[in-house]
């Protein structure tokens, strides 16, 4: 039984080694790389396809509609139909556009999005490149997305796309800071910059509950901060200003059509998956099972289940919230997220130095909750936001 579970867990690793065993030694490094990369290149676009259906169906249900249900069983062939549609659509390049950059932008975006997957542990022993500074690599490569977005907005030579690109760059750069600072706590706790190391640091169970970082005050705060920042990084609602369709129509990719548009779409979702996967790695124990008696389920299954849960959360939020305004978005990043992320680092440090669990829980929670309440109240009061009462004339 245990053996079967282990085999199931390691089946992809074993399969790769089995193939490598039959190949000539000279080709092995190359083949090993290909065998690691290709499944990722297949799995995540596939997940993208599934997500688009799930998102549209989920939003539909939130809005009391069916969502797509005509293409194939329960509408699950919808992405295929969409794919065929985007492939066969005319690829329009504005005559005043910078053709080379216009063409390159979606490619850069997708390549950058894929590169981030190199360091994400998808399962036990399943990581393309186990870099010892993997988290750094992740954030560094993630920044490339901004370049691609700006290339798209600039090269399109359209006012709306330029506005969108400006918004996107400002937003992504601003939110990079809370994003990185929020992940620092996990790095501090694990003492490692390697995603694999961070997952390993969260292994083990007390009773049936796992030792995930999210179950500590600083971890929880870090997780929330990371999620908010990641939402902004991946331009998801309510931070979808760069593409706010009611304001600047589609933002930086307004001048893209056909397959290039699909690439943008893909790149955006890949970015969201990568951010979610990083959040899972940093705070949700990576591929480890949530309860000790569930460890027999293969690790990659847990990883993808957690990923799907995160995606569901993103969809839920998208279905509920209106979008923020640019200055409010910036205000949130600089006035709230940044101080909270810094405080969170302090809290994580304090946690390390106080041995007694009840005391450190109380101290850390106090460090975080009190400023959070004060800060949000203060910001709210400064803007005079309130639920108003109204007068009536007879």
């Amino acid at each position: 039984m245990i053996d079967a579970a282990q085999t199931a867990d390691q089946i992809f690793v074993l399969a790769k080694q089995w193939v490598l065993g039959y190949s000539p030694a000279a080709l092995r490094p190359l083949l090993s790389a290909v065998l690691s990369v290709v499944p990722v290149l297949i799995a995540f676009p596939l997940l993208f396809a599934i997500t688009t259906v799930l998102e549209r169906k989920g939003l539909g249900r939130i809005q009391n509609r069916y969502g797509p249900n005509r293409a194939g069983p329960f509408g699950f062939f919808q992405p295929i139909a969409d794919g065929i549609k985007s492939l066969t659509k005319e690829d329009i390049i504005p005559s005043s556009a910078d053709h080379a950059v216009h063409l390159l932008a979606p490619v850069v975006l997708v390549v950058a999005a894929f590169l981030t997957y190199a360091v994400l542990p998808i399962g036990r022993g399943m990581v393309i490149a186990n870099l010892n500074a993997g988290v750094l690599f992740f954030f560094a490569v993630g920044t490339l997305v901004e370049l691609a977005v700006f290339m798209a907005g600039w090269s399109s030579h359209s006012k709306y796309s330029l506005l969108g690109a400006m918004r996107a760059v400002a937003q992504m750069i601003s939110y990079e800071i809370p994003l990185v600072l929020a992940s620092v706590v996990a790095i501090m706790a694990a003492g490692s910059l390697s995603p694999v190391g961070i997952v390993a640091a969260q292994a083990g169970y007390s009773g049936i509950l796992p030792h995930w970082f999210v179950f500590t005050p600083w971890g929880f705060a870090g997780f929330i901060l990371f999620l908010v920042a990641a939402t902004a990084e991946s331009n998801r609602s309510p931070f979808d200003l760069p593409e706010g369709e009611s304001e600047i129509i589609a933002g930086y990719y307004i001048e893209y059509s056909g397959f290039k548009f699909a690439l943008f779409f893909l790149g955006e979702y890949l970015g969201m998956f990568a951010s979610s996967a990083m959040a899972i790695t940093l705070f949700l124990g990576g591929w480890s099972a949530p309860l000790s008696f569930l460890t027999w389920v293969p690790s990659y299954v847990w990883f993808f289940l957690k990923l799907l849960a995160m995606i569901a959360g993103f969809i839920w939020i998208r279905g509920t919230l209106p979008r923020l305004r640019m200055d409010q978005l910036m205000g949130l990043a600089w006035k709230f997220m940044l101080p909270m992320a810094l405080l969170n680092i302090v809290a994580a440090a304090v946690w390390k130095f106080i041995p007694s669990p009840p005391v450190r829980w109380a101290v850390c929670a106090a460090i975080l909750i009190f400023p959070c309440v004060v800060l949000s109240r203060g910001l709210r009061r400064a803007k005079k936001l309130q639920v108003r009462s109204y007068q009536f004339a007879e």
Partner: protein
Amino acid sequence: MSAASVAGEVMEELDAAVRPADDFGEQLLEVSMGPQHPSTHGVFRMNVALDGERVMKLKPVFGYLHRNHEKIAEQETYLGSMPYTDRLDYFCSITNNWAYALAVEKLAGITVPERAEYLRVITGELTRLQNHACLIGFLLQDMGASGTPLMYAFREREKILDLFEALTGARMMCNYMRFGGCRVDLPAGWLEQARGVVAGFPKFLDEFEQLLQSNEILMERTQGVGVLSKELAINAAVSGPMARASGVNYDLRKVDRYGIYDRFAFRVPLGAHGDVYDRYMIRVLEMRESVKILEQAMKEIPGGPIVDPKTKIRGFRPKPGEAYGRIEAPKGELGFYLVSDGSANPYRYRVRPPSLINLTVLEDMCLGRNVADVVIILGSVDIVLGEVDR
């Protein structure tokens, strides 16, 4: 994007204090928002001059849907214009019919039987309910809420449209009123169905409130945005919920007491700030008042004829003269000004479109705000281009 928005509001205020706004006139980015912009509510266009994302100038451009409705009406019989009025504000065809019928009744001195007045109030208030519900949905859509509030609004609207179809035969182009009454009487079971819909409406409003009212993002986006002062609102003849959000106590149902509105107990909500949030909330509160009116009207509706028997469908020729009739349409004061020369066609037929006149102050509300604000300010004005351009 100017540096100002990157560093947030504090910097923005500093900025405005240090640099005069017209300092960089040459660097303004001119953007044509519309006529195919997704949130201009039709083929409306604004020529916007932007400094970064801040609006320095905004000029509305109309006429993309202009079909010279008034000229067409001069070539039609009086009755022949009735179906055309449906197409003005195509969300509220019944109130359009009502305003036109009221003007013609004033012109020709026709009285309306009791039951017809009740029918007008019931259908008119149902129209108001669905218009306001959808407007709020559109407003939130403009704010980027992925259509969820809009879909909830449409879900409720569907029930009201079903009622309209059962009564008038059409969901949107009702063509329901006639001079001196209404076209058809209630079919069997209609009132019960309508009572059910009206009784269920507050539940929908509660849901809406739960979803949005205390939502921080909504408050942040709307409070203090697009402020319209009371003085300007009156001077620019801004009417309807938009004027009342600025604190102008001017509801024609109370002022003119046209029809039988003096028989119903209802209140007029008034805003104190005149911003987008007030305009949103006034509409929510007005829906609650409309529900009250509907409940009373459906309880009291008497029997009797539905149309003045003296009026004839064909060969209607009012005596020479003129009349201005106006009602409180969901979007504001909808007036019809008719001049008769004694023939079967009106000599002059003028629509006072609330949507167009409420747009007079659009630039005043938008100056100095962001593009994102322009979109929701426009959304909160509640325009339908069929009426703006006529």
